[in-house]
């Protein structure tokens, strides 16, 4: 029988995969992909909790997370385009203008 723990562990694993992407990649587009993975991992956890506790709140949260993710992509992609026009690259190593 699949329980809440299974889903939670799956969610944790997916989140870690997303984290690998966030930490490892230097390309901003790839970073966005990794972020999407992490958001989805959270969504699974929400949906699972909602299911196993019989409470709709979890689904609601997942719903709003999706809304946020959609907005984030819209704005983020616009920013990426501007950045690409400016620098001709999406590599973070070329973006060290804030060096202290």
């Amino acid at each position, binding site marked *: 029988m699949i329980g809440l723990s299974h889903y939670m562990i799956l969610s944790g694993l997916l989140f870690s995969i997303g*984290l690998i992407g*966030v*930490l490892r990649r*230097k390309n901003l587009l790839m*970073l966005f992909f990794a972020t999407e993975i992490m958001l989805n991992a959270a969504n699974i956890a929400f949906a699972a909790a909602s299911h196993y506790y019989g409470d709709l709140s979890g689904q609601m949260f997942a719903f709003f997370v999706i809304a946020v993710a959609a907005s984030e992509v819209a704005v983020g992609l616009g920013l990426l385009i501007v950045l690409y026009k400016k620098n001709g690259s999406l590599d*973070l*190593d070329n*973006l*060290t*203008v*804030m*060096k*202290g």
Partner: protein
Amino acid sequence: MENLVYIALFAPLVGSLFAALFAMTPKNLITAFVTSGLLFVSWVASSSLLMYVMDHGTISVNMMEWIAAGNLTIDFGFQVDAITAVMMVVVTTVSTVVHVYSIGYMEHDKGFNRFFSYLSAFVFSMMILVMSDNFAGLFIGWEGVGVCSWLLIGFWYHKADVSTDVNPSISPSWAANEAFIVNRIADLAMLIGIFLIYWNVGSLNYDVFFAAIPSLENSLLVSIGIALFIGAMGKSAQFPLHTWLADAMEGPTPVSALIHAATMVTAGVYLVVRANPLYAEIPNVSLFIAYLGTFVAIFAASMALVNRDLKRIIAYSTLSQLGYMFAAAGLGAYWVALFHLAAHAFFKALLFLGAGNVMHAMHDELDIFKMGGLKKAMRGTYLYMGLASLALAGIFPLAGFFSKDTILEVAFNEHTYIIWFVLWITAGLTAFYSFRQVFLTFDGDERYKKETDAHPHEVQNFVLVAMAPLAILAIIFGFFMNPFKEFATTILPAYEMSEHTHHIAWILIIVTTLIAVSGIVLAYKKYANGLVRDEKMENSFIYKLLQNQYYIPKFYMEFIAKPYKEISDILWNKVDMKVVDATVDGIAKIIYFTGDKSRKMQTGNLSDYLNWMGVGAMLLIVITALSMSLS
């Protein structure tokens, strides 16, 4: 009547603040006139209060609630009863005279305005001290006069330090600090006494405390009495806290007259007199006070015998007379102590002001061995100082005769013959050293012509006129003894001589007068016809001992001040620098070091930041997991 109380109290404060406005500006006579005028107003108010209290009894005024914290309530209240009224009149009389005198004395001083500001501030503090109806107010005044005394002793703070061989008090600022620090030690004990009172009685009000005395344990009363008396010892310079008074003579002479002779140093006596219901309950402590006073009387007189410094001689005589007052108070004759206090204030202030005249004429030369024959140039001062010395020596019919004789009678009456004998001897010593000083200064050959380049001249006339009230009081005050006794004993316990003492009183008077006169005669024989120095005597052990003040200052220096400094040095170099400072510096260095290292984290590369965020996230999750598993 309430208004009179406020006028008497606050007129000096207003004067002081007014003079303080001009503190940084060059000499301005208006400050002197305003402060002196306001003090005269205060004197008028005090005198009217004295009259009023004589007719109607004690006045109590509650100005405001001062401290109200939880259970602690201290009112800013004033109470004018017989003791306070006497003190107020004495203080305002002497200080008014001293203010006027200072106009002449400080004529050429740069800090003229500042001086008057300090002087009036002192009078204000002294008024609070004597007028307060509770120990908290008394303590405020007590500290206030301490601060003013510090400011005034160190008035010429710019004088450099010299070695003790040249000047035993090193420098005015040194002397001021000594006075302040010694008083701090005594004040600590006094504070403890006040705390004990509050702790056990729940109020600092005199009346409440005195009413509660019968219900308190004897041991507690003894500790309170001792603690308060140690405070009194500091302020009144009793042994072993006496060293500061002689050094305090570094201040301007009017200050010595007002603070270190007439008023502030008598605050200790005032305290004992004020707390008479307490000391009446603890006869052992009282007897100790009497013996200590007696000891200080002869101890200080012996030091005065050989001293060559004009002001220091008078300072030691002050010390000696304070001893008389404590002896009287300790024996239970409080009104006699108060009477001697008032009489002494008048003639001692006169003596000091006369010494100030001499000093002025001799261009700050204080060595009486370098004077002599000044009576030609300074007839008025000679008269005043002679008069004051006669009063001090206790010659009929001057003020000192009555007060001192009464103290001796009290000592005889109490069957404490040791006290009587010592005080009797001291009376002879007093007469001797007073007139040794007078004769060396004013009579004999004119040594100053050889030794110094001074051209002595009499002071301005108004100064001499200003001193006249003190001279008159020194002459006539003794005749007010019986009215004074009646007035004072409305508050203080009446002290009656036994029948036996009454009968032999005239013998005592004759005996005392005899020794005083013989002291004067001896001084006259030895010094009036010029100074003959006796090398053999001056090199004798006792002479050296006395001249070096029994080596007590040296003892304090070697065994208290120097070890203290060494300990302080060790603490500073070892503990403070190597432990405390090093710790603080270490913390700063660690922060600086870590900051310098972690600065490299700021690469500006977003990816690195993300990595750091990952580290943080990992730590948070691990900590959460651990805390969950532990809970």
